[in-house]
């Protein structure tokens, strides 16, 4: 019997060693596996290289991991945001290394790692600082730069539902990097709102087949869903709107 489910987020992040390269899914807060990141902080691994589109928002999730001093280097496309003060401070103090990669090259390099591609030629970035020193080649009259895959020891991703074989479905634009990161890591760990019975995910709609997933942990429903249906009542951070908090208080 195959059972990739684990009981707790602590079990899910077991074995992540100091110095590991860890992909973390999400675009901003959407799809960020916050419960797994919190478990990684508690787990204690440091000197990490993190691959994410951004470099943390606010003080939670990835930003908290950075604030805890666990990250040596971040590979991302868009670190500077209105709420990236944790990263900004570390970067200005020279306490974190930044490898800036155009977003589409970041995605394709991750995809290439998972698909066994040795390297690929891309037009993105050609003639810019971010392709400086890279091998170029003219193909059919257009210039391309050679880019290498980005692989990782672990991937932490977030999905809506999963089963014990590791099949996953996502929700809306929270899908973002999940499906490609799942393919590119030695060990892929998925947090899901709920683990469902084998066979209850429609095979036609499975987005990440279980072959790419090693551990599945259930973290409970997101606040803006009830019985799987959208009910709203939250802000973009997922925090309850003030009126709802008052209702709860009563």
């Amino acid at each position, binding site marked *: 019997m195959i059972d990739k489910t684990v009981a707790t987020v602590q079990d899910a992040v077991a074995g992540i060693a100091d110095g590991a390269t860890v992909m973390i899914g999400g675009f901003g807060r959407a799809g960020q596996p916050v419960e797994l990141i919190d478990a990684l902080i508690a787990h204690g691994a440091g000197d990490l290289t993190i691959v994410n589109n951004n470099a943390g928002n606010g003080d939670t999730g990835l930003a908290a991991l950075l604030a805890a001093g666990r990250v040596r280097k971040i590979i991302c496309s*868009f670190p500077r945001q209105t709420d990236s003060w944790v990263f900004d401070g570390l970067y200005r103090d020279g306490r974190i290394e930044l490898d*800036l990669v*155009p977003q589409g090259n970041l995605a394709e390099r991750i995809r290439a790692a998972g698909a066994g591609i040795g390297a690929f030629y891309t037009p993105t970035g050609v003639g810019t600082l971010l392709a400086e020193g890279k091998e170029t080649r003219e193909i059919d009259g257009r210039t391309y730069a050679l880019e290498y895959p980005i692989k990782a020891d672990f991937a932490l991703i977030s999905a809506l539902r999963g089963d014990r074989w590791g099949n996953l479905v996502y929700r809306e634009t929270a899908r973002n990097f999940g499906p*490609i990161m799942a393919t590119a890591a030695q060990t892929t760990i998925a947090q899901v709102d709920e683990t469902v019975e084998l066979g209850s995910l429609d095979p036609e709609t499975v987005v990440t087949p279980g072959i790419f997933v090693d551990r599945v942990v259930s973290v409970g429903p997101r606040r803006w869903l009830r019985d799987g249906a959208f009910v709203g009542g*939250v802000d973009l951070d997922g925090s309850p709107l003030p009126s709802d908090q008052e209702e709860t208080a009563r």
Partner: protein
Amino acid sequence: MSTRISRQELAARIAADIPDGAVVNLGIGAPTLVADYLPQDEEIILHTENGMLGMGPAPVEGHVDPDLINAGKQAVTALAGAAYFHHADSFGMMRGGHLDVCVLGAFQVAENGDLANWSTGAPGAIPAVGGAMDLAIGAKAVYVMTDLLTKQGESKLVQTCTYPLTGVGCVSRVYTDHAVFDVTPAGFAVRHAFGENTVELLRELTGLALIDATDAEGTRA
């Protein structure tokens, strides 16, 4: 004295040039305004690079869905016919030449179509590029939406970009508050001068030898 049109008027002008049925990516910032002026009786599909086609407007109050955001990380909605996809597919849509139009902001655009819009190269600034370089080379038509002049009065249309490039020879057309310019093999051509602007005045403002491609209708907004 040169007259300028507002951001909203410029957004409406750009929207009017986008054909029915086009798939369009609107960059973060001012270009997102274009969505407000797309004709209601046409079907223009908006692509957001974080993973959706068929993006709709901001949700009504109380219906913000943290899983449903645009590239600027703002809450949006999904229209009937929308589709979600992962990042590699999303950027494949750009790189593969499947997008019809993208509208981007700019620090500088050069006569040969070079675009600089991701970094001023200022020392100490934290660099961030996001999808700018992918968008610049990844749509059939790359439109730039910008003021013609910086706050210091310098032209953003230049012979050669002095800021770090986003893409080489990638811009098709520049929509500014003074005029609309096409990028041609012979340099910028004034397609439409707004209000009291004339090609001669635009030459003075930009210091460039602009081609006059205005027609009788195009010289007055």
